[in-house]
């Protein structure tokens, strides 16, 4: 079954509808101009983002210059690769030299960042076109919040709902076809949750595969940068550029980076998959449970050997991560908490204040607990090639400041893979009530992104979810 990179599209009347895999060959051949593509994206943002509020900053002038430069380079025969001329956007905790990083917070000074984050450098070197900085929970944690300098982004599939978080703007922007690719960050699920809510693909790579340099920290030992795209193939294309050792990030892994696109063989026959059903059956909504079960059955039909397994309750992973996170978050924000606590959004302040009481013994105890949990989870990869489970236990939350979701509080199906540091991808598997997307997660052993992508891609080839697009409405000015 063919899933060609070199798709021969000839209809570029709406290039924003296309993914990197379709755009790249057209840009390379000259059939599509990077300038036209960037203009189309900027026009779409100008028309529809008032209603969605994905962007904190749109770098239109810079984007136009970069697109013109890309076009000239390509015409002169200097083609940098599949991301050349492709628009992208960054969660607004990722630095771009000369552009302010707001972290969606009053705490940030609003002055331009001094240097590019490493992931920004890699994307720029690949010739990608930055369109702007995307809304997020405050410092990737405090949200969804309505007491910040900018309102929270909304879900393109249904603006009565939120797009998940904390990479909220990233998920929404990709789903809305404002950009075909974005960078988010994931500590407890912040790439995968918005991917699940927005019906797109979001990968939390192995801890250390992507550099964290130049990214505002949430939890040093659990933070990951991750690509967010509409298809698994696009995700692999983005990962090829963004993965790799950065000696200036102390957590950066020094591992060889394979060609992730080459791994998309479409063949998962004989692959051993453990379906972690106890994590979602009975706790997720019935449409999610049925959706994930159906997706697992499809993987089985594609030749994978799918077996149901039981893992420890997700509450353990959540408690352990919260102890570690809160300790590190408090330390990160301590100076501001002591001098200007009122400048915090309420949710961020509440979530980090508890760290003041955590003792070193408790923090160290959590780190020891993490070792046990990580070892326990990774032990499954001795017997299975991949773990599959739900992407999230619920669909997107209502966009209502007064909405409180007690039942889900603190129970997070993305957490186990964060804690274990293993690669985990969220892949769309359908739609439920209110037109809200459903998702599954696929995880594998450390540095086995190729396996995770191969399973996701195989599923994607026989499903149609990525062809659907949300219907946007131009909103009133903010």
């Amino acid at each position: 079954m063919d899933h060609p990179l070199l798709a021969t599209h000839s209809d570029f009347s709406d290039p924003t509808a296309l993914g990197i895999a379709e755009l790249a060959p057209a840009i390379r051949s000259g059939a599509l101009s990077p300038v036209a593509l960037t203009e189309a994206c900027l026009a779409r943002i100008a028309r529809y983002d008032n209603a969605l509020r994905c962007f904190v900053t749109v770098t239109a002038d810079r984007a136009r210059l970069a697109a013109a430069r890309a076009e000239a380079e390509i015409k002169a025969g200097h083609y940098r690769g599949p991301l050349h001329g492709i628009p992208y956007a960054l969660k607004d905790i990722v630095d771009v030299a000369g552009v302010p990083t707001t972290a969606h917070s009053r705490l940030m000074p609003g002055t331009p960042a001094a240097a590019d984050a490493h992931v920004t450098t890699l994307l720029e070197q690949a010739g990608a076109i930055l369109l702007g900085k995307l809304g997020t929970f405050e410092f990737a944690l405090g949200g969804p919040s309505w007491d910040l300098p900018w309102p929270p982004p909304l879900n393109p599939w249904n603006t009565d709902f939120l797009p998940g978080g904390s990479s909220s703007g990233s998920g929404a922007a990709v789903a809305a076809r404002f950009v075909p690719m974005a960078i988010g960050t994931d500590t407890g699920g912040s790439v995968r949750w918005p991917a699940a809510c927005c019906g797109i693909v979001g990968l939390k790579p192995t801890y250390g595969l992507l550099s964290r340099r130049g990214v505002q920290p949430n939890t040093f030992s659990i933070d990951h940068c991750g690509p967010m795209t509409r298809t698994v193939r696009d995700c692999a294309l983005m990962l090829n550029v963004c993965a790799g050792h950065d000696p200036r990030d102390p957590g950066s892994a020094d591992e060889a980076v394979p060609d992730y696109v080459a791994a998309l063989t479409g063949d998962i026959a004989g692959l051993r998959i453990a379906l972690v059903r106890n994590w979602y059956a009975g706790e997720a909504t019935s449409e999610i449970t049925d959706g994930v079960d159906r997706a697992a059955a499809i993987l089985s039909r594609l030749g994978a050997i799918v077996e149901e397994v039981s893992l420890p309750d997700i509450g353990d992973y959540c408690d352990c991560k919260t102890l570690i996170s809160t300790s590190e978050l408090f330390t990160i924000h301590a100076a501001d908490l002591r001098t200007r606590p009122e400048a915090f959004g309420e949710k961020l302040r509440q979530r980090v204040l508890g760290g003041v009481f955590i003792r070193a013994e408790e923090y160290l105890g959590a780190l020891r607990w993490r070792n046990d949990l990580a070892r326990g989870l990774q032990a499954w990869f001795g017997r299975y090639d991949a773990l599959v489970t739900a992407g999230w236990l619920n669909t997107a939350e209502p966009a209502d400041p007064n909405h409180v979701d007690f039942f889900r509080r603190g129970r997070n199906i993305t957490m186990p893979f964060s804690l274990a540091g293993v690669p985990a991808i969220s892949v769309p598997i359908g739609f439920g009530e209110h037109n809200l997307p459903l998702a599954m997660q696929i995880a594998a052993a450390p540095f086995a992104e190729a396996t995770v992508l191969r399973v996701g891609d195989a599923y994607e080839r026989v499903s149609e979810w990525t062809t659907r697009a949300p219907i946007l409405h131009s909103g009133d000015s903010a």
Partner: protein
Amino acid sequence: MADLPFLTIAEASNLIATRQLSPVELTEAYLTRIEELDHLLDSFVTLTAERARAEAKAAEATIMTSGPVSRMHGIPYCLKDIYETAGIRTTAMSKLLADNIPARDSYCQEKLVAAGGVLLGKNATWEFAHGGPSWDVLFPPARNPWNPAYSPAGSSSGSGAAIAAGFAPATLGSDTGGSIRGPAAACGIAGLKPTYGLVSRRGVIPNCFSHDHAGPLAWTCEDLAILMQVIAGHDPEDPGSAKVAIPDYTAALTGDIKGLVIGVPTTWLDDEDPPKPATKAAFEAALDVFRGLGCSIRPVKLPPLRQFDDAKKTIAVAELFTIHGKDLRTRPELFGASLRYRIIAGGLVRAEEYLNAMRLRADLARAMQSVMETIDVLMLPTAEPAGKLQPIPPSSLFTKSSFTTPFNVGGNPALSVCSGFAENGMPFSLQIVGGLFDDATVLRVGDVYEKATPWRQKRPALAVAETA
């Protein structure tokens, strides 16, 4: 027979390989000497005489038929009593572990057994390698062979004493703030704190995870190299274990240090914590030896000693409390007073404070590696010569500064060798520090120094005690 206990590993190994010396005879010589003289020093807490004799016999048989499997084959050794030994009590000198009989050998012990070594016994240590010298723990504190009224320093106190006294040619200790180098210095022997992660800590009762190092003590640097060849290497069961290629440490003892660039941390020695005049003079004399050998010496600037101490000790007190918290809450009376004092406040350290201490460590480690890139090795005294063995205020751990702690913080390989003798006969010491994983260079430099100086010819005069 009288000289056998003073053989180095290298010498004994050569004699064994050429069938001129039997491991049985060698082992017997050590056991006899220990039985005669260790009551003066209390360097052993457990003697494994029967096992040693059996191992020596087996080694002899194998060597007779197929030759030695390693340079440690048939060579007696002892272990700081924090190295777990299967079936043999491992007490860490603590009432809490009086009945502790491990089921499994530590990694290093497994390696020594595989190399054909002969286990003589377990050595006195400070309680849990941290509280000491103590008179209220399971066994009395070890004493210094150069003068039994003096301290052998700690925490690898018994290990240092045993080598200097000729009770064994080989031992393993541990070093978290200086616990190999301090005893090596006090006892006039060689001791190496290897690069962090080079030697597996699996089965070594922990002091402080993030700063613990396992390492050898012996009479010479050549002997240290032989021991490192046995114990260095990646162990997936030790989460801090480094995955690096292990060089041939003995082959690296080429004797050549011409052109070596030696850095001296002058801000420490001249301003912050000047050594006493005699110690300074001994250090200068050592530097002169290197000048004479064609090395160049230059001052280097490192962050203040006190910062290294603050970072390490804050991290350590929190990690120690984490390790011992359960016992402190339920049976604090079983701890020696020194250890209990040194860890009890760790329960009050907040995570934020621990994390800031870890951030300081990151700064200091970066600064150290930056400086080490500009030189081949760093040199400074290890410590003042040993003082009398007497109770010291446990708070001194927090207040006294240390020339050894910075290299636990940075993780760099750090060696202590004997650099002469004071007027009262107690040894002076020289510390040689290298770049990360450059343990071979550090040993090479120490080896050259030992061969260029007469210090290795002098042994402590331990006499059989006459009845008082």
